């Protein structure tokens, strides 16, 4: 496979999120090339993009993109005034932002090894989401503020993983400045390759772990 698909997936993963891009690419490849195409996609990009590998493998076993479930998460967000989002998964963040009351401010930590075009990312939310720098995101701390991180693999046996941004923002100083530290699992299928781009974390790092589907 040429560098084209890798570059395309890299861009999509950066600006949509790895799980969001993985389900999208897998569905599109299946639509145009069938299961053999999904297998080729997995073989070509899976080692570099383990979340895509997991989604391709699950797809070939019959899994399809799960319906996003925001209801359990919204129950934990009742009464809060700010949500600081760590990591990006557009497939999950879009409906969450739409479901939150307008008075709840939503911030997105501007940190990613995948170097997205942040202006383009934030434009997708039509002014509803604000970008936050690592240097000043604690300006959003408070007794009714929540840190929300996308996590991967909460239900699997290979461990729980988060984006490196989570490790950067969840130090002992920050942990007691936010009411809740919530992990939202967006993968829902098992990882079979150690996930580069992600960092192993402990379930105990979070006050809540919720399934995103």
């Amino acid at each position: 496979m040429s560098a084209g698909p890798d570059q395309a997936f890299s861009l999509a993963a950066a600006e949509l999120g790895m799980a969001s891009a993985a389900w999208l690419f897998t569905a599109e490849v299946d639509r145009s090339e069938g299961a053999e195409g999904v297998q080729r996609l997995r073989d070509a990009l899976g080692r570099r993009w383990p979340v895509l590998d997991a989604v391709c493998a699950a797809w070939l076993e019959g899994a399809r993109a799960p319906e996003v479930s925001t209801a359990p998460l919204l129950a934990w967000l009742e009464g809060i005034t700010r949500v600081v989002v760590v990591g990006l998964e557009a497939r999950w963040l879009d409906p969450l932002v739409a479901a939150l009351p307008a008075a709840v401010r939503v911030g997105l930590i501007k940190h990613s090894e995948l170097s997205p075009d942040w202006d383009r990312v934030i434009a997708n939310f039509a002014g509803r989401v604000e970008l936050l720098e690592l240097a000043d995101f604690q300006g959003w701390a408070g007794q009714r503020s929540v840190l929300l991180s996308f996590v991967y693999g909460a239900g699997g046996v290979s461990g729980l993983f988060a984006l490196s941004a989570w490790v950067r923002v969840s130090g002992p100083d920050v942990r007691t400045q936010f009411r809740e530290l919530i992990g939202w699992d967006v993968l829902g299928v098992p990882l079979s390759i150690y996930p580069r781009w992600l960092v192993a974390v402990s379930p105990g790092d979070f006050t809540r772990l919720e399934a995103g589907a």
Partner: protein
Amino acid sequence: MPPPHKHDKKHDKKHRHPASQALRFVEPASLDALLATLVPGNADREFVQRCLIDEGPLHHRGANYLLLRLLGRVLERVPGVDAPLEGEEVPMRLPPHLEDEVEEGNFPLPLPTRALRELLGDDEESLAAAVDCLTDGPPQHSLANVVMVSLLERLLARLEAKR
């Protein structure tokens, strides 16, 4: 493997509980019941309890739990009707350059000042210094101080009412 350090044996005897067992005596529900008299909101109370016994060094978590439970037991033995507690906000430890930007940067539990004011003879400067001492530091310290002062203020008021 290198030979054991001469202090290791003594140290091991003194600290014989592995980390996984260091907090074996902690019953979160018992502390929750005590805190419910101070922080009625469930989400607020969970936040306070996490700061007291789920964050920071193990020895602080265990010490907080034990001291607060003991104070709670003392209070139970002096029945009485409690007046509302009023006092000073307890700020989170935020980076100095952001302190003025955070609108809700206080913990959901104030430091009551009635008993402190009596102790310090209505000296407002001393009271301000005392508040500073009690609310500074990470929340394993500051919030534990606040809960202890709250329970002690209630205890003193109940004892005074019996005189």
